[in-house]
């Protein structure tokens, strides 16, 4: 920054004061709900219920977590979500990256046609029911494939990766390699991919977050409870208020049940969001990078 820009008038000082204050307030408004869920999950449910927990946990207890971890449906949901996110990410990233590379090449015959073939689907789609009927006819209902294949290779992701390839792997590089007798496939594996680790990281993260948080496809396509991902089990607990009886052993009165239910709700929010929220600060730079690459028009 130039020295000149640092010189401040009185109005500028006010501007800074107001700016910092407003941003700090906004930051606290965003942070507080997350923080409150955390402290509530460790607090005595009676104290939460009567409104005595505000800024610090009160009546510290791990009761909620013990009940959650003793419940098998949570574990099944966790295992399923990990499976779906793992397989889905593998397929999704592979399809995306394979598609993006040829589309990044300057002279590919039919490139414009293929781009349109992909982009039209952004504006027009068959919609929910025709897609559902197709999945049914393919006998993919109640299988992992209904969740991981139909959405593979989303247009936005393909464009992001393509833009990255275009800007970081110039065509001259390929021309030089091909003169040396390198095939397209070999060039892709030994030059393109090693130079693209950051965009691969971005894609892996996008997919993992998408699959971990997704619930609608599972709601439509799965009906076997043993195949439910974590989000569907969360929905039962958080939104539909169906806490498993397994979590309620030893709770007798109705009032106590209500309170323990609340505690369990705070706990499952933490348990289900923790993997992403813990990873997130370390991954932040990749997310930011991904959004920025995607924002370059091309």
């Amino acid at each position, binding site marked *: 920054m130039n020295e000149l820009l640092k010189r401040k008038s009185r109005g500028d000082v006010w*501007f800074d004061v107001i700016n910092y204050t407003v941003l700090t307030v906004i930051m606290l408004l965003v942070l507080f*709900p997350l923080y409150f869920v955390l402290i509530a999950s460790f607090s005595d449910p009676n104290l939460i*219920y009567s409104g005595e927990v505000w800024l610090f946990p009160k009546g510290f207890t791990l009761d909620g977590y013990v009940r959650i971890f003793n419940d098998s449906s949570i574990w099944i949901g966790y295992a399923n979500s990990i499976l779906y996110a793992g397989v889905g990410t593998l397929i999704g990233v592979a*399809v995306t990256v394979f*598609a993006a590379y040829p589309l990044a090449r300057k002279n590919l015959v039919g490139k414009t046609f293929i781009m349109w073939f992909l982009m039209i689907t952004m504006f027009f789609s068959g919609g929910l*029911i025709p*897609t559902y*009927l197709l999945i049914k006819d393919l006998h993919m209902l109640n299988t992992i494939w209904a969740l991981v294949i139909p959405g593979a290779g989303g247009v936005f992701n393909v464009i992001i990766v393509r833009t990255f390839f275009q800007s970081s792997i110039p065509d001259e590089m390929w021309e030089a390699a091909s003169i040396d007798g390198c095939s397209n496939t070999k060039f892709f594996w030994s030059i393109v991919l090693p130079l693209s680790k950051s965009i691969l990281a971005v894609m892996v993260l996008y997919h993992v977050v998408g699959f971990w948080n997704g619930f609608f496809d599972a709601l439509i396509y799965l009906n076997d409870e043993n195949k439910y991902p974590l989000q569907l089990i969360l929905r039962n607990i958080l939104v539909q208020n169906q806490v498993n009886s397994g979590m309620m052993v030893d709770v007798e009165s109705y009032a106590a049940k209500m309170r323990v239910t609340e505690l369990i709700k705070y706990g499952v929010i933490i348990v289900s969001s923790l993997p992403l929220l813990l990873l997130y600060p370390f991954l932040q730079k990749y*997310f930011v990078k991904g959004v*920025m690459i995607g924002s370059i028009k091309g």
Partner: protein
Amino acid sequence: MIKPSRKTWSRMKRDYELYLFLLPIIIVYLVFKYYPMYGVQIAFKDFSPSRGIWGSEWVGFQHFIDFFDSYNFWTIMNNTLTLSFLSLIFSFPAPIIIAIMLNQMLGKRYKKFIQTVIYAPHFISTVVLVGMLHVFLSPNSGIVNHFIAWLGGEPILFMANEGWFRPLYILSGIWQETGFSTIIYLAALAGVNPELHEAATMDGASKWKRVWNVDIPSILPTIVILLILALGNIMSIGFEKAFLMQSDLNYATSNIIPTYVYEMGIQKAQYSFSTAVGLFNSMINIVLIVTVNRVAKKMTETSLW
């Protein structure tokens, strides 16, 4: 059709591996995106599973007419449009303002910290977000009602009140996505030519004036592009959240086209009718995005295509 020349053929042959790379995505799109477009014809048929898409009988626009004539058509349209436009009006400017404010921060560390915090809700799932609304707004135990009681008010049945559906939908959306949406504007602001700021400062412009006359005009193209995209998606507002927040008690305002399509199609198995409603919805979307794009091109010379 232009007949491919020999040169084109030889180039395609030379690059055959690249076409193999493209094969998976083409298959996925043909099967899972284009085939359902073919299936859209059931909107004009009386689909019966036993006779299949092709064998079912044509009924023309009957399902559309039924939808337009149904007693809740105007409610659903009104709910969809009101929710969409209100969320757009309130959610769209928020990240622009916050990005400009963040861009004016001098302390790098504090700025980074604020960014880290405000991006975070983006990584929370919709289910958890709606779950948080339920626990925070619970009439007996929620912190919001405790706060209202502490101020001396009566507890409010937020989640079971049709009047609260829209404000809650919009506010929770702002809480969850504003921070993350600032990234794209911050990127645009980082690209603003510093000489413009220097020149403005020389001329005695205050910070406020520089924001207004340098920053905002510089990021206008980004704003326009994102606005077009947002307007084009106005009819396809977040199904997931509306669906999760929906209950019998707020149905009067929470019943929007996407949830109606789900209800009629998946829950009541009215495949043809539901497809017709969905098709009607995407038609409005296409018309909107094409119109908005054209207007934007004329007025600001910025457009999607």
